[in-house]
């Protein structure tokens, strides 16, 4: 029903005299990567949107068929490079489900710590880029962006001392994690969390006491509950539209059931609601990491024996779908194993991809300036959209 309504908006006679067709992207300051939106404008108002994706397609799913279970996790992080831990997580969970691999408790906790720190880092980058979309690279938005980058840097430092890499990690392996926490890392992590918790209050005061920010974020880009459910958006978008759903609580994986945390839900469905959801998620992630550090059990970090060859791990025949709550929503990995060291087939369910498909429903009727604000609030990462 909603689909037909959009079709009528998209199927516009582009030759109409008073209408302007404007290309936003694929090379555009607000494209967050390579996204092309062909906008039909009437004055400043958007009447039609034609979204074009695929500029960053790298055949990730085919690539997964050519790499072994030991190799692919560190490549999986390249799908969503802003939240690299998430896709590694989904891949190893799927492989472990098929192979019925046991994961030690300590490894599960380290996974949770990594995933939640990653969520904080990803949300920080989102806040910065979203404000830059609204405020300009030569304005207040850039100021917020640089503050956020400053804090994200602290988390990347943590990852660096844990894994050795700052963007694409390769921490996960089938059966556990590759690295144990180094000495002094828990304390460094606690200090970082305390700093970030403090700075979050600063951001909120900087933004929520700012009438211009509120004017841009409130009442813009409504996603109704029905639309959110029909299109299948996930993560903060879904919770910002009043749906109380979070995989970490509804379908706990990797010991998430051990931790107490709340799931923020905002019923309004506008950009400001999505902003609020993410601001609360920051706090919840911090709380989860603190609990995990407090109760971190001793023991091995992986059930996988040391490998002599990357083709040594074989997973029995079967198929499984693993779902992980990433910073942008549900990241799914569908894996079919045929008993060889490589999967027979792999399919990603990218959160950004599903979230992005809400844009043509939401954008018409808004001003050009709102297009970038709404797109920023969706927080797409095009590595994950195109894969």
């Amino acid at each position, binding site marked *: 029903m909603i689909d037909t309504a959009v079709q009528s908006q998209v199927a516009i006679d582009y030759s109409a005299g008073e209408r*302007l067709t*404007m*290309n*936003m992207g694929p090379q*555009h*300051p*607000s494209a967050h990567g390579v996204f092309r939106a062909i906008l039909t*404008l009437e004055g*400043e108002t958007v009447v039609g949107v034609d979204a074009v994706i695929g500029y960053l397609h790298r055949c990730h799913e085919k690539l997964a068929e050519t790499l072994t279970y030991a190799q692919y996790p560190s490549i999986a992080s390249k799908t969503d490079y802003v939240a690299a831990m998430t896709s590694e997580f989904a891949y190893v969970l799927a492989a472990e489900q098929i192979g019925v691999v046991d994961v030690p408790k300590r490894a599960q906790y380290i996974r949770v710590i990594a995933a939640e720190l990653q969520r904080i880092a990803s949300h920080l980058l989102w806040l910065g880029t979203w*404000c*830059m*979309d*609204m*405020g*300009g*690279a*030569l*304005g*207040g*938005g*850039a*100021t917020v962006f*640089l*503050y956020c980058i*400053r804090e994200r840097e602290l988390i990347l430092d943590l990852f660096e001392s844990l894994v050795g890499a700052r963007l694409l990690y390769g921490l996960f392996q089938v059966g556990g994690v590759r690295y144990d926490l180094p000495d002094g890392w828990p304390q460094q992590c606690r200090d970082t969390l305390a700093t970030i918790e403090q700075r979050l209050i600063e951001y909120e005061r*900087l933004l929520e006491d*700012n009438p*211009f*920010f509120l*004017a*841009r974020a409130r009442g813009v880009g409504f996603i109704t509950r029905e639309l959110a459910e029909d299109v299948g958006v996930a993560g903060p978008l879904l919770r910002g539209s009043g749906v109380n759903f979070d995989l970490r609580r509804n379908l706990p994986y990797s010991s998430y059931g051990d931790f107490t945390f709340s799931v923020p839900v905002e019923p309004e469905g506008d950009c400001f609601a999505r902003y609020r959801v993410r601001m609360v998620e920051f706090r919840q992630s911090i709380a989860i990491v603190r609990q995990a550090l407090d109760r971190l059990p001793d023991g091995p970090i992986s059930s996988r024996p040391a490998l002599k060859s990357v083709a040594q791990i074989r997973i029995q025949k079967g198929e499984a779908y693993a779902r992980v709550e990433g910073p942008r929503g549900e990241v799914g990995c569908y894996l079919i194993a045929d008993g060889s060291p490589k999967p027979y087939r792999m399919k990603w369910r990218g959160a950004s991809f599903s979230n992005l498909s809400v844009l043509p429903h939401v954008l018409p009727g808004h*001003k*050009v*300036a*709102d*297009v*970038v604000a709404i797109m920023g609030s969706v927080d797409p990462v095009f590595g994950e959209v195109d894969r």
Partner: protein
Amino acid sequence: MPAWLVAALAAFAVLNVVLVIVTYVTLLERKFAARMQTRIGPYRVGPHGLLQPIADAVKLVMKEDIVPDAADRPVYNLAPIVFLIPCMLIFATIPFAPGLGVADLNIGILFFLAVSAMEIVGLFMAGWGSNNKYALLSAMRAVNQIISYDLPFIFSALVPVLLTGSLRLSDIAAAQSGLWFVFYPVIGQLAFLFFVISTLAAENRVPFDILEAESELVAGFRVEYSGMKFAIIQLGEYAHMVGSSFLGALLFLGAWSGPGPEWLGPIWFLIKAMLVFLLVTWVRWSFVRIRVDQILTLSWKLLLPATLLLLATTAVVIVWRTSGLT
């Protein structure tokens, strides 16, 4: 020396001084913004990056000048000049010290406001001549915004005129030797506030930079410009900015009045103008941009009535006080 030669020399001198100030204002802004954003800013070229503006200028001169095939060539090429001239001309009437200026017109402020509004012609030519959709949208926004904000700009600038009773800028400056107009109870502060807001809008600064709006319109009207033409547009924009800062310092902050010997006057004036400039910069680097419809709403529904009311109130107060009814 014949009078015309003096005038020509004065104009030449002012133009050069202004160019130097404008060039270095970019460095000031970059340093200031960097400090706000926990950065250091330009540091490599010269001590503390002091030669950065020169390096920037050299770089821009050496850039290739690209003219789009589809551009309307005469309009496209002329636009930067048409834009720069009014931006430079506004300095003509500003007295930098008693008797130190190019032309102290008896309608100085009127000249300033009229010429300063003319920059829109160059902006629109640039946007139209580029034959680019981003530039066109930006040009439309520019006309919209500048027409909307020139009225509050003029009305708030007229408050000191009323308080002085003269349109001559040197008279306005001299009238503040006792009390700067920004300290005039209530009226002064309100007028200064409105002046700063409408300056921000007239200068196309964040939060009102919808015509540049790089996240929507890439670079707006100057998206197709490169090399020296881009530099000229940039120069004009900053010249306009500096000119308005000088006007603000002159109208509200007592121009050259300050402690110390008289020859320090121009320096005080410069410091005050830079303070106004930094105030505008401070706002620029702390706010997000607002939408085009919100900008128009703010102007027509809030600023315009408010400044008109303020102007009327000022007139009433002056009549009340001068007629001795207090």
